[in-house]
């Protein structure tokens, strides 16, 4: 490959990286969930925590995104909403990512 082709590949990679960074920021915003008046991030960490501490329990305590304590009295409902919000955000991110990859190819 000549230098122009190498530069073009580098430029395409930069563009793809920029689009991916914006799509990821969008996914982070899309993951914001307000439940029982508290703000949460429906991310993998929150989902794993909720699934773990809610096993066999009717209620449990956790922190919202501002470290305020919350009692979750309906863990099943909360987990369902977290998963819905998380998967909706990541589905959109996945679609955007595929578009970026296809354009690069």
């Amino acid at each position, binding site marked *: 490959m000549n230098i122009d082709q190498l530069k073009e590949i580098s430029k395409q990679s*930069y*563009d793809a990286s*920029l*689009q991916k*960074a*914006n799509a990821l*920021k*969008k996914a*982070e*915003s*899309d993951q*914001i*969930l*307000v439940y029982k*008046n*508290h*703000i949460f*991030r429906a991310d993998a960490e929150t989902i794993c925590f909720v699934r773990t501490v809610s096993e066999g329990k009717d209620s449990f305590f956790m922190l919202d*995104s*501002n470290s*305020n304590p919350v009692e979750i009295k309906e863990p099943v409902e909360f987990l369902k909403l977290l998963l819905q919000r998380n998967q909706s955000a990541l589905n*959109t991110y996945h679609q*955007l990512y595929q578009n970026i990859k296809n354009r690069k190819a």
Partner: protein
Amino acid sequence: MTKGVLLYCFDTPQVSYSKITDRCISLIERNLGLPVTVVTDADTKLRIKSNCDTRVVDIEKGNTKFSKPWYNLERHLAFDHSPYDRTVVMDVDYFCYSDKILRLLESENDFLVHKNAHDVMHREVMRYDREAMLDLVWATVLIFNKTPRTRAIFDTVKLVKENYVHYCNLYRITYKNFRNDYAFAIALNQINGHKEYDVIPDSIATVPADAEILELDDNRAVIRCNDKTISLQDQDLHFLNKDVAYV
């Protein structure tokens, strides 16, 4: 509890903020479905085409940004200007392409603001941690209830505004023109006993001033900057380039 959006819109000789406001309102209607009240002056009111509630005020002039008029001295009055119990105060150049604000309105926090913003070109140009002795907040979007505590926050912003030189010296703020971002940062810092306060957990996607805006649709914006063209869809955006009025 009534909920709505409060916008401040004053045309300047250089920028038609009324045009930007019309586009901002159409996106609020489409994606948030909330009532809108615009605080404006008599001349600008005539140029706003949207069907919305307006409140005409005499504005305080004198502030500048890049040597051009900058009419940003009214926001500390939002508590009194707002007809709503729970209010979103928003820059007119913040375009709601998503329902994020609607989700945040369901929270119990009596005052919310963003602490982070990022350039959509990801150039690491939006860090201000060396520009002052306190963290900046972005007064681009404020969400508040009318409570004694939020009244205290707005009253402190007024106090900061009236003594801005003193507070700039106190917090070693390098930017000397009045800026709501710093005024609210100082007020929140003081009212919260110089401790942490609740914030909106994500970052404002900001279209930089040097980006050319190529297209604006109902759900996306296409911009070009440094020969890079990017499309941003279904994501709230804050436009620093006021040419957004003419796209």
